[in-house]
C-alpha cells in the first residue's frame, strides 16, 4: 500500500515543480479572478437595485461566485496535456510501464491542483472581502474547502477523460468549450441553480455539474437542502463513475492501438 502511494506521489512531485514553472499562467488566472469578482459584485448590486424576486443578498452571491470560480480555476486544464501526449505518441511508450498511464497522469494533475488551489483560494478570500466588506461565518468557509478540493479533483478527472477523447478526435478543444459552458450553466457557476428556470434545474440533476460547483459553494451562502453527508455521497458516486469511464475509455483506446499495430 505504501509503495503504491509513494510511486504515485512521485508523479505528483514532478508536476508541482512544473506548476511552479507555469507561474505566468497562474498569475493570469489570479488577475482574471479578481476582475470577474469585481464585475459581479457590481452586477449583483445592480440586480439588487432592480429588485430581484428571489431576494438574495448581493454579498452572499459574490462569495458564492468566489467559491465556484475557485473550484473551476484550480482544476488544471490537463485535457490539453493529454491531447498533446497522445498526438506525440508518448502514450505508446508509457503503456509498457508498470504504473498505469492513466493513474500516473491523474496523480500528476493532482500535484498541479495542489499548487494552484491555495493561491487561488487566497485570491478568492481577499477579493471577495475587498468587494463586499464582509466575511461569511468561518464554519461555512471551513466546510467549503475540503468539498471544493474534492470537487476540483473530480473535475480534473473529467478533464482527463475529455483529453482521452483525443484518441478518436483530432482536436478535443471544441468538445471542451461546450462541456465547460454546460458546466457553467448546469453547475450554477455564476448564479445559484435556484435562480434558473425549473427545466434547467431538473436537467442539471442528471449531470455531475451541480455536485462540482453549486453544492459545495452553497455552504458559503445559505443552509441548503444539500447536507454535507449527502454531498459527500454524491461526490463519491460521481468519482467512481468518472473513474470507470476513464478506465473503460482508455481500455478501448489502447486495444484499438494494439490492433493497428501502434
Amino acid at each position, binding site marked *: 500500500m505504501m509503495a503504491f502511494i509513494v510511486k504515485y506521489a512521485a508523479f505528483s512531485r514532478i508536476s508541482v515543480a512544473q506548476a511552479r514553472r507555469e507561474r505566468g499562467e497562474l498569475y493570469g488566472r489570479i488577475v482574471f479572478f479578481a476582475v470577474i469578482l469585481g464585475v459581479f459584485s457590481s452586477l449583483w448590486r445592480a440586480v439588487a437595485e*432592480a429588485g430581484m424576486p428571489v431576494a438574495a443578498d448581493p454579498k452572499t452571491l459574490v462569495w458564492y461566485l468566489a467559491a465556484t470560480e475557485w473550484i473551476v480555476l484550480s482544476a488544471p486544464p490537463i485535457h490539453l496535456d493529454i491531447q498533446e501526449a497522445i498526438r506525440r505518441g508518448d502514450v505508446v511508450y508509457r503503456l509498457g510501464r508498470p504504473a498505469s498511464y492513466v493513474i500516473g497522469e491523474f496523480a500528476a494533475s493532482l500535484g498541479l491542483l495542489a499548487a494552484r488551489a491555495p493561491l487561488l483560494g487566497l485570491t478568492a478570500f481577499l477579493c471577495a472581502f475587498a468587494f463586499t466588506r464582509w466575511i461569511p461565518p468561518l464554519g461555512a468557509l471551513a466546510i467549503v474547502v475540503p468539498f471544493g478540493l474534492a470537487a476540483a479533483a473530480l473535475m480534473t478527472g473529467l478533464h482527463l477523460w475529455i483529453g482521452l477523447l483525443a484518441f478518436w478526435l483530432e*482536436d478535443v478543444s471544441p468538445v471542451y468549450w461546450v462541456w465547460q459552458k454546460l458546466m457553467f450553466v448546469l453547475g450554477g457557476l455564476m448564479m445559484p441553480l435556484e435562480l434558473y428556470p425549473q427545466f434547467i434545474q431538473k436537467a442539471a440533476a442528471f449531470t455531475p455539474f451541480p455536485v462540482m460547483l453549486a453544492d459545495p459553494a452553497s455552504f458559503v451562502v445559505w443552509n441548503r437542502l444539500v447536507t454535507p453527508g449527502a454531498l459527500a455521497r454524491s461526490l463519491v458516486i460521481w468519482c467512481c463513475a468518472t473513474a470507470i469511464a476513464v478506465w473503460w475509455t482508455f481500455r478501448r483506446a489502447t486495444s484499438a492501438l494494439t490492433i493497428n499495430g501502434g
Partner: protein
Amino acid sequence: MAAKSLAFARALIATNLKAALALRGAFVIQVVFMLLNNGTFFVFWWALMHQVSALRGWRLGDIQLLFGVVAAGFGLAVTVAGGVRHLGRFIEEGDLDTLLTQPRSVLVYALGVRSQPSGFGDLLSGMLFIAWSGQVSWRMVPIVLAVILASALVFVASGIVFFSLAFWLGRVETLARQLWELLITFSLYPEPLFGGMLRLALFTILPAGFVGYLPARVVHAPSLLHVSLLAVGAGTYLALAVLVFDRGLRRYASGSRFSTFG
C-alpha cells in the same frame, strides 16, 4: 501602387480563408461547437434577465446586442487577421524574417497568415444574437456590418499593440494574452456596471468600450455623435497600432533582442 497592395491584401485574405477551410471536417466542428459554446454561455443572461426586467436601463435585448457585436467583431478579427494572436511568437521566433524578404507590408502579411476557424462560429453566433435582439430591422444591415467592422478593427489594433510588446520585452506571450482576454471579458458586460475610473480605462488603455459598448450603442440608437466617436476611436487605435509595430520593426532590424546569443 495602392491598387497592387489592395490586390495583395485580397489575395492574402482569400488564401487565408482557403487554408482555414482546407480541413473541412475540423472546420465544421469548430464552427458548430463555437456556436453551441456561445449560446450555452448566454443562457446565464437569459435566465437572469427573466427575473430582472432591466439592469440599470439595460434589457435582455440590449445585452444580447452587446454580446452579438463583441462576438461578431472578435470573430471577424480572428478569421481575417488571425495572425494577430500569434504576433508575439512570430517576433520571438524570427518568423518575421521570411516576410521581411518580400516586398510587402510586414504587418498586413503577418496578420493575414493565420486564421482561427472557430472565429467563423463567433461571427455567425454574433450575427444571430444581433438579429434576435429585437433591436434591428432590415434597413439597419449596413450599419450593423459597419459596426462589426469597427469592432473587429479595434480588436486587431489592440492585439497588435499587446503582442508587439515582444519587440521590446521578449517573451510576452502570457502578459499579452492576459491583456487580450481582459479586453474580451470587460467588453461582454454592460457598461453601466463600471464606475467612473474604470469606464475611463475601458475607453482608453483597454478599449472594451470601443469593441462592444459604443458599437452596440450605434446600432441601438444611431446618432452622428456616436458614429463619429466610433470612427475616430477605431481610426486612432489603428494608427497607434501601426506606429507601435513600425517602431518595433525598426528595433527588430537593429537586432537587439532579449535572447541568449547563438
